[in-house]
């Protein structure tokens, strides 16, 4: 049995299809990443899997519980960290955790123990009694994660957990998630539009665009699946006649672009092309003045499968966008 099973799930808002017949499974203990631009349908999918939105068609099961027929069992078994930071700013970290522990019906002694342990696990133990309004964005996000784990869920859903955080806080959040996953034997499904995060931390990544699943595999296999895995940027002490053609003739080279005196070479095998390139320069009696080799990233994968970069898109207006609402700092 899989921890998460999604079968042909579709969600329509009027004529707009936010999620279009998505199907995938997540194994126990996996960190599964949903990668896509804003408006791709990631959050809608998470909201369906966490029983916040009913699907228009299709079904999904969490730990074998159907999200529609056994919604309460699903709710008891999952932890949810929504995109918006929803902790009460006027309450302390401890109080925020306590309220949610009570909502899950956890008894007093267990509640006290779990709150202390979790706040320690997310490095907020010393700030437990401080109001959340004094916390930085990273601290608040760590508190949200701790809050989502207060009832010992087996599956954790995170909707863009690092959006809006500075690079240091992002790394801290993901390190904490990796640690908690190991300690608590969690299955994690997280959405993100940060390619580097998905690359480093997810066991498997599903690329979603316009509500459709366009690719699904481990980051390594996804990167291997596209042509031209390495980009070489190289410059020489001199450029002999017909040098571009010479470079194109090197083994494993897919494409060569010259810009001033810098050559960008797409290669199917970066290391081999590099060795041959240096040999060719020596034969032509010129020196290599600079050389860099870049690996294929998930950005390249995304570009390959969707035909475009991550981009912004229009979204349906919500109460968040009301002129009256103020931004929570």
């Amino acid at each position: 049995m899989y921890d998460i099973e999604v079968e042909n799930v579709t969600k329509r808002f009027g004529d707009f299809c936010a999620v279009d017949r998505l199907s995938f499974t997540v194994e126990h203990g996996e960190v599964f990443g949903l990668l896509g631009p804003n408006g791709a349908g990631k959050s809608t999918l998470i909201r369906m899997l966490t029983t916040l939105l009913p699907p228009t068609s299709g079904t999904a099961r969490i730990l074998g519980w159907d999200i529609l027929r056994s919604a309460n069992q699903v709710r008891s078994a999952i932890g949810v960290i929504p995109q918006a930071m929803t902790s009460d700013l006027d309450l302390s970290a401890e109080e925020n955790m306590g309220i949610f522990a009570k909502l899950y019906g956890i008894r007093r002694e267990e509640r006290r123990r779990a709150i202390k342990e979790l706040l320690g696990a997310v490095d907020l133990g010393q700030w437990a009694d401080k109001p959340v309004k004094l916390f930085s964005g990273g601290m608040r996000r760590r508190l949200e994660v701790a809050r989502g784990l207060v009832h010992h869920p087996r599956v954790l859903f995170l909707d863009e957990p690092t959006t809006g955080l500075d690079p240091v806080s992002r790394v801290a959040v993901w390190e904490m998630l990796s640690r908690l996953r190991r300690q608590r034997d969690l299955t994690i499904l997280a959405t993100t539009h940060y390619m580097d995060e998905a690359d480093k931390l997810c066991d498997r990544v599903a690329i979603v665009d316009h509500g459709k699943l366009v690719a699904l595999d481990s980051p390594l296999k996804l990167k291997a699946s596209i042509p031209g895995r390495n980009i070489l940027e190289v410059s020489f002490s001199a450029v002999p006649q017909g040098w571009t053609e010479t470079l194109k003739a090197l083994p494993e080279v897919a494409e060569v672009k010259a810009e001033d005196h810098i050559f960008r070479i797409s290669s199917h095998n970066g290391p081999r092309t590099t060795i041959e390139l240096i040999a060719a320069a020596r034969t032509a009696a010129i020196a290599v003045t600079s050389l860099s080799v870049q690996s294929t990233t998930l950005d390249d994968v995304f570009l390959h499968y969707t035909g475009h970069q991550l981009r912004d898109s229009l979204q349906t207006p919500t109460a968040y966008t009301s002129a009256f609402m103020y931004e929570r700092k």
Partner: protein
Amino acid sequence: MNRILAIIERDLRRFRRSPTLIVVSMILPLVQLVVLGYAFGGKVKHLLVGVVDQDHGLPAVRLQALARAVAANALTFTTIPYGDQTRALRDLRDGKINAVLNIPPQFSRKVLAGANPRIALVEDNTDQFSASTLEATFNQMLGPYNQKAPPPRLSANATLAVVEIYPYVPYIQYLLSGTIVLAVFVSAMIGGGIIYIDDKARGLHEGYLVTPITKFELILGFNLAGAARAIIAGLVLVTFGSLIAGIPDPFNPARLARLLVLVVATALALISMMFLFMVRVSDPLVPRATFGVLNTLLFFPSGAVYPINAFPAWMKVITVMDPFTYAVHGFKELILKNTGLLAISSDLAFLAAFTVGAMAAATLLFRRTL
């Protein structure tokens, strides 16, 4: 039960840490009590009445002397003699005076002949309160003026003796009942309307919806949390409002206990009504925009500021359905008449039935999903 208590705990902790909110929800109705109570409760005084004597006879002089005596004692008006009727009327139209008392030529002759003597009171009727006060005062003044001889010791005419069973009730005390209900309403509007929708818009409710809490537990939790705040506001108003309005024996424990029962019933009715109105709303502007309309629609037809017997038929329909009406009536009974709970049992029954109905409807309409 723990889940319901968690919702109440969350709201009360937030409420306790928002002193501005507490002040606004409680001080505003108190200010309104003082301002409205004294603005409408006093007698009209120091109106300016121009007197034009075109007769100059002895009865006319006697009439003016009587008017000056009333002016000196009751201070309802001050007389200003005019030699010219045209100038007096011009000053009246210009708003310099409030009325012109015109004693026409031949007035004295007609008085002495008993031939239907008449004087005229030309008044600025754009201000109905001042106009009716002057009319009543001058009519009252003409009674003794017309008295030819001292009245007999034993009158042959039937007379009416008025007995007031309660001490004199100043308007500020009359207004207190409505003000307490208004404070509870303001608190319900803030808790059950504005904060509820703001929390929803910020995604705070998502936190509740992903837990195994039921629809009924959520609605009951929201209602009780809002009611707890409204009860606090109501009790503050009962205490301070009674002191400000000069209610006798304001801290009598039995009386306070009866008032607490009515405050609780009122708070539950108003907060459940507010949740029913807001259960499908998601735009934070809606509760703010409807606040004034709801306030007017519910407060004024309730008899809080004016007797409901004076309302037109269509307004009485609102009055019958309005929970404010029953709450205001109950508070008037308890505060002004110091009655027991039995006297307001029908009010309590209506408020309880209204609470149950509104909560049931809100639970049916509440969406467990986004």
